[in-house]
């Protein structure tokens, strides 16, 4: 499986139409929301609740893909697909947590430059 870019800055740029203040605001909004979704996914996984995991991963995937957090979005989609079959992919959740951290750092870096 090829690696998606961590953050597709072109996507974010397009969403905010070049407005730097809006870009920073969107990034911040995303991080706040995604933190919640990642937590939900992790606790669903911990509780071995595949349904709840699929739901949380779906929301996370949608939000991530929308803002251009491509790698996180892709992982979330995979987690959703696997959870829908009843599986609880713990390894994938760990990776999601790690990639979310990287994404957060990357977004913060982009906002300040």
């Amino acid at each position, binding site marked *: 499986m090829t690696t998606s870019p961590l953050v597709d800055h072109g996507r974010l740029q397009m969403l905010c139409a070049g407005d730097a203040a*809006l870009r920073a605001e969107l990034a911040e909004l995303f991080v706040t929301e995604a933190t919640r979704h990642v937590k939900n996914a992790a606790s669903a996984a911990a509780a071995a609740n595949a349904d709840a995991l699929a739901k949380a991963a779906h929301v996370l995937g*949608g939000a991530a893909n929308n803002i251009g957090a491509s790698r996180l979005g892709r992982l979330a989609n995979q987690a959703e697909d696997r959870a829908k079959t009843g599986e609880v992919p713990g390894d994938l959740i760990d990776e999601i947590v790690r990639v979310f951290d990287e994404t957060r750092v990357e977004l913060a870096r982009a906002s300040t430059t």
Partner: protein
Amino acid sequence: MSAVLSKIEPLAVRLEDRASASPELPGVVAIVDDDAVTRRVLNTLLTRAGFGVLEFATGTALLDRGTEGISVACVDLALGDMSGLDLIPRVRARDADVAIVVITGTRDVDVAVRAMRSGAYDFLTKPFEPDQVVPAVGRAHERWCLANRVRQLERAAVDSEMLPALIGRSEAMRGLARQVDRVVGSDVSVCLFGESGTGKEVVANAIHEKSARGSGPFVALNCAAIPAALQESELFGHERGAFTGAVQSHKGRFEQAKGGTLFLDELGEMSLATQASLLRALQERVIRRVGGTSDIQVDVRIVCATHRDLRSEVEAGRFREDLYFRLVVYPIALPPLRARIDDVPLLVGHFVRKLAADVGRTVKRFTPEALDAMSRYPWPGNVRELQNVVHRCMLVADGEEVRLADLPSEIHASILPPLPPPPAPASSAPQTPVPPESTTREILGENEVISLAALERRAIENALRATKGNMARAAKLLGVGRTTLYRRLASLGIPFEEGSK
């Protein structure tokens, strides 16, 4: 920013074209999405385009607020508290006019198709292109404006039930109403000219009702329906034994109309012999029954009508000039429906109410799209044809609304050539024109026989090629909805890009 604004301008222009009577109505766009980023992006785009925006994180929040003032609801299908698929019918049950634009991940296009079926107007796929958002919401908003305008006109129609005969607010119809007002104060002889189906008898009846003779009888005689030999006896009556078959005496229309109005329809078809008798009756104000010996006083107001050019009938010697001048004291021309096409929604509303009891159906309205299509049809048979079409549609429609697809083929055929402008001028590249309707012989060789499925596949592939894969425009060219096109693509196994517009 300026790119976004330039996108909405053609929409505003189109709205002006269509609803010149009412300016664009203000309406607020509701964004229902549990993703804060999506809400913020949509809010920014739409606010910049001049829309008022309300954000809702859940479906419940929207239902609690209600839809008052909301023209468009952009609804994410994967909401936290309920599925957008459940929300759509609940919103529409409260307010059928709100145009719903579904937001959905590209990963589940089939859900979008289901949403369209449950009453959504359009859909956007996530991650969406900002360029698509404003035009899509603009179109949905335009649809809401159209629905609102129809509702207003319907209300106005109910208000003007005083004069049910003269339905219409067009200049042509107001002019007609003024003319009717002018002739109701006296017994002046009125002649109505107009194509068939324009409602000559309806206007004649209106003149009668509004005049001082309104409480008297309104008697109509269609000269075209009565053989020349019987016209006199129909008009003036006959005594028993006046001719073979006259087993008892009979009152003619003149006598039946005593104190009221006699309406002579298709006057141009009256025989010359009857014309002579009629002239005498009008000059001397008395009639005599066929075979009778006593004079009977005439107390009627004459209104006549014809679809012929009576002047040239006079010149051709088929109509008496002296009678012409007696009857055509006040000519009134009835406009053909195509000259007052703005009245179509009103008339449709009127017939829906009038026919509802007859038809025994629950049809309450025509969708704005259906009304729009009907407003582009030339209506050669005028209001009568419109009434027949409304009747037919009410019989075939499913549920409360008559949709575009329920309209008869002649209306579909007539709206094909002037395609509406492409929704969003995405690129300035010239579009390959596709002949809107080709005969089968142009598609197939005369002796070539292929299966319908193959024919369908060819039509769809051609349309997609011509529109460079633009689903919305391809669907329009094919004369089907976008949803139908997706379904056909799937069942024919034609590969297509999900979410392409």
